[in-house]
């Protein structure tokens, strides 16, 4: 029996679509702010930019109860094992958003000879959506979450403001 992360063992066609719709509209992120981007993530959860209207406002402290990890901030080499362990503790199906330049590719801290950081979250865990910015505006993070919802539902959202 092949256990591939994110792919269910039993496939039911229409039910999968319904399940994906439910999963996309109630993403529960884990409180995982590492550095500056954490503040913009908090601002996205506050009342002006409100993540709750997308169902994604329930930040859970425990990885066992969440299905979205927003890596917000620089991953240092000391922190990397903890990031991987938290990712492994999340139950499938799970997704990762790399928020901010540090989580995408090391950001402003990457230089030739940098000894302290992991230049990019995708070097240690699989990333689904990249949200660039230093830090990205809360609207950017919301766009990232909506893109993730499109990826989960495998079809575009009903209303697209492009």
């Amino acid at each position, binding site marked *: 029996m092949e256990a591939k992360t994110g792919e269910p063992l039993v496939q039911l066609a229409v039910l999968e679509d319904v399940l994906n719709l439910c999963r996309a509209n109630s993403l529960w992120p884990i409180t995982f702010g590492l550095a500056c981007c954490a503040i913009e993530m908090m601002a996205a959860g506050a009342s002006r930019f409100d993540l709750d209207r997308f169902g994604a406002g329930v930040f859970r402290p425990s990885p066992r109860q969440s299905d979205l990890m927003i890596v917000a901030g620089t991953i240092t*080499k*000391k922190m990397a094992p903890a990031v991987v362990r938290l990712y492994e503790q999340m139950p499938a199906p799970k997704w990762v958003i790399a928020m901010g330049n540090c989580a995408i590719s090391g950001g402003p801290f990457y230089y*030739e*000879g*940098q*000894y*302290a950081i992991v230049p990019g979250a995708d070097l240690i865990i699989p990333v689904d959506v990249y949200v660039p910015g230093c830090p990205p505006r809360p609207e950017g993070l919301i766009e990232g979450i909506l893109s993730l919802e499109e990826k989960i539902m495998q079809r575009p959202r009903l209303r697209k403001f492009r």
Partner: protein
Amino acid sequence: MLADTIKKSLTALNLEKVADGDYAKTGYHLEVAAQPDQMPAVAQLFLDQKCYLESLTAVDLVESFLLVYHFASFFELCRTVVHVPLAKGTRMPSITGSYKGADWYEREVYDMFGIGFSGHPNLKRILLPEDADFHPLLKDFVGGK
């Protein structure tokens, strides 16, 4: 004036240099130079004058180290810098006997430069992982891959 009181008490320790600093240019009111083994006594003197340890750091001068201590006071404006030259490979006496806050500063200097402090209660790395085998702020450290 706190600066005069400090200067007077420092004369008893027979230090290399106790001079007025150029505040407008450097931000120091007093500039002091001391030898490593005199440092615990100097630190105790500043604690008796109710000064706090503002900062403790080191500079890698390639052939030797220079430890730099900054002391300031909550009650009267007077910043003192103490320069302590240290030969490479020697250990520095710790001032944690006087200032408990120096604990973390000295651990950071050990972590970044590899300077050992004798008499420190818990000298281990503080910022890098404990199994790291390099001291990053040395001038000949060029970094990882």
